[in-house]
């Protein structure tokens, strides 16, 4: 009989995929809090239920966000995780690090926390998982000393995040890293001090492939795209044509959603006026096809998960916007939307739900945008129209 304190979890150290249980055990060699987590988690696996209570309000001086309070409901059994708060550290744009920067972060965390982390949290933060209330100020002070700051939590601007962008991707239609950094720095107050009706997420995707799922996950989604012709390298097209495993007609032309491509066995042609910039042909022939030169972004609003009124994908409010710094047009738009939200939003209602309630037509009118056919898939098919204009007998 093994004397393991986690016989059920030990089963999850088997198999080829890296084991989170092994990670908890490694952290437990350095921190009693991680050992406490292991033992509490074992109980959860036995009883099939969580042993975490609701978060309480904890934080660092002057900030309303960045720390998520977490308490055990079994602190009599597991006193080391009686408090087990999360520290959200604002990640660098694109999740780029150097080994030295990570060592610096781990130095702080090994001193003050459970030695467990998430790289990264769902919104994008570097997550320090599990510490006591008494350690929070010290963690914050040491982080800021080294040039790091906390991310968002609660009803504030959540930590903006982005794809790898122009740092290492030829598809990027604007500088997602620069914009993420700019917005993060421009909205430090909104990020650290929650005063919105609910959370607000910015996500920057460099192209319509949307590797950061901005269209599904962000209240304000900025997706790179282009207006002019797809750039083509005819020599590289020939290389693909010569590849016996690659079938241009079947894998590229037939998959084009707007049927704007043709291939006669020698020449690939694109009717760019009818291209919807879906990325498929560029994705599968990256050596031959490139996004155009007249680049910018589309802005979509209102994505969210189901709670409360049902999940929504973001929808278009600006079909194309220039993305050259200092992004003034973009920031003016954000300011107008926040003013609208301040006036119309109710507690725990995301902007997408607020727009659903008020109506997209009314929303865009109030933030000063003109109605455009690109904002909808089709005009309405129901005749219940709230006409506001009418004539009266003289």
């Amino acid at each position, binding site marked *: 009989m093994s004397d393991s304190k986690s016989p059920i979890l030990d089963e999850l150290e088997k198999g080829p995929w890296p084991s989170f249980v092994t990670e908890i055990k490694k952290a437990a060699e350095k921190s009693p809090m991680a050992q406490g987590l292991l033992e509490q988690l074992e109980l959860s696996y036995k009883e099939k239920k*969580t042993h975490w209570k609701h978060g309480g309000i904890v934080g660092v001086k002057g900030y309303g966000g960045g720390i998520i309070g977490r308490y055990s409901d079994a602190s009599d059994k597991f006193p080391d995780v009686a408090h087990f708060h999360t520290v959200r550290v604002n990640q660098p744009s694109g999740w780029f690090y150097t080994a030295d*920067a990570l060592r610096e972060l781990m130095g702080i*965390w090994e001193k003050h926390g459970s030695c467990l982390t998430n790289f990264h949290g*769902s919104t994008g933060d570097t997550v320090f998982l599990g510490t006591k209330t008494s350690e929070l100020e010290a963690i914050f002070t040491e982080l800021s000393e080294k040039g790091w700051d906390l991310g968002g939590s609660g009803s504030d601007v959540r930590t903006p995040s982005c794809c790898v962008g122009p740092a290492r*991707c030829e598809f990027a239609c604007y500088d997602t890293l620069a914009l993420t950094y700019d917005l993060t720095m421009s909205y430090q107050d909104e990020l650290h001090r929650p005063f919105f009706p609910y959370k607000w997420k910015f996500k920057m995707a460099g192209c319509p492939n949307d590797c950061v*799922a901005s269209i599904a996950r962000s209240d304000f989604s900025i997706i790179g795209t282009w207006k002019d012709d797809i750039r083509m390298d005819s020599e590289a097209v020939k290389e693909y044509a010569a590849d016996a495993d690659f079938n241009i007609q079947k894998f590229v032309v037939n998959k084009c959603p707007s049927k704007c491509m043709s291939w006669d066995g020698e020449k690939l042609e694109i009717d760019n006026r009818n291209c919807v910039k879906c990325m498929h042909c560029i994705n599968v022939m990256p050596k031959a096809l490139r996004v155009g030169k007249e680049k910018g972004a589309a802005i979509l609003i209102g994505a969210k998960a189901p709670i409360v009124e049902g999940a929504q994908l973001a929808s278009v409010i600006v079909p194309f916007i220039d993305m050259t710094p200092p992004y003034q047009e973009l920031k003016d738009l954000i300011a107008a939307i926040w003013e609208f939200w301040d006036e119309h939003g109710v507690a725990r209602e995301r902007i997408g739900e607020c727009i659903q309630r008020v109506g997209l037509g009314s929303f865009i009118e109030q933030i000063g945008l003109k109605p455009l056919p690109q904002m909808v898939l089709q005009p309405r098919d129901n005749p219940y129209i709230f006409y506001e204009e009418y004539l009266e007998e003289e």
Partner: protein
Amino acid sequence: MAAPARKTDIGPPHYEKFLHPIIKENYGKWKYHEVIKPGVLVHVAETGAKIFTVRAASPRLLSSTTILLICDLADKYSGGYLRFTSRNNIEFILDNEANIDPLINELKQNNIPVGGTKNSISNIVHTQGWIHCHSSATDASGLVKVIMDDCFEYFENMTLPHKVKIAVACCLNMCGAVHCSDIAILGLHRRPPKIDHANLKNMCEIPSTVASCPTAAIRPTYVDGKPSVKIDEDRCMFCGNCFSVCPAMPIADPLNDGVSIWVGGKVSNARTQPTFTKLAIPYIPNNPPRWTEVTEAVKKIVTIYAQDAEKYERVGEWIERIGWPRFFDLTGFEFTKYHIDDFKYAGLTYRRTTQMKY
């Protein structure tokens, strides 16, 4: 020793500090990329400069010990430069092609596999689960581990028709945004919250608790002379939003909590429009530590997709083409009344045509 000065609102470090010199020189000037082999990319710039990426797996929950090991490997092979992906993979950024295989070998010696590129199952995005969440109906990390163990071959090779993105969320809050994945595992509760009438008034604000319910099932009331709330249980759809607002309404129920499986969502605009996942299996009981029924169902979906889909068809595109009735035929999953939507936009999903395959 004086305490360090306390600074606020300084924001994150500027990302340029962490960019490899070749990335800095070729920022915005990348021409194309190729997948050299599973888990290894080369990006080529207009100047002809090349940068190599080795993509390695991670359980997302990492000890500082493992982070420090990764740092040592980065120093040894990639000049200390690395990044993480939106699916929690680790990417080492190398300028020396000769370092690729030694790095991969040393990663493998440390049980860190390499893969997740192109037509593969890349890492699973997921939530905290029993590790750190109060509203979880299941454990996310455990599900990720057993599914990736079971589908491991698809991480290490690129033989699928297209990429398959899997996500796990431990409750309907979906911090993992599973609602747009090829395959989604979603934890759910199936019973209304149990109200702690004795303490509710002290722990919760009654008006906001009432307002939190999307189906207006919660009403104010008095129980034993104390202000509390009551639930119209027939209207409860177990979303847990009231519990988020009011800790005196715990919704976890080990006997009834479990997971559901959803398929066919995507966020990319490639070919077809971004779309939500749709329900495949409404309920599987929690069966830790290895959730065998869940891994079998996921493996079944992946295997049938691998056999039946055309190249460059994502799971949802494949099902759209063959039709949902055939998806249920092929998988043998039972179609139940729970598969038919009955919330706000339910009518949009009814079939209003006679176009059907027999």
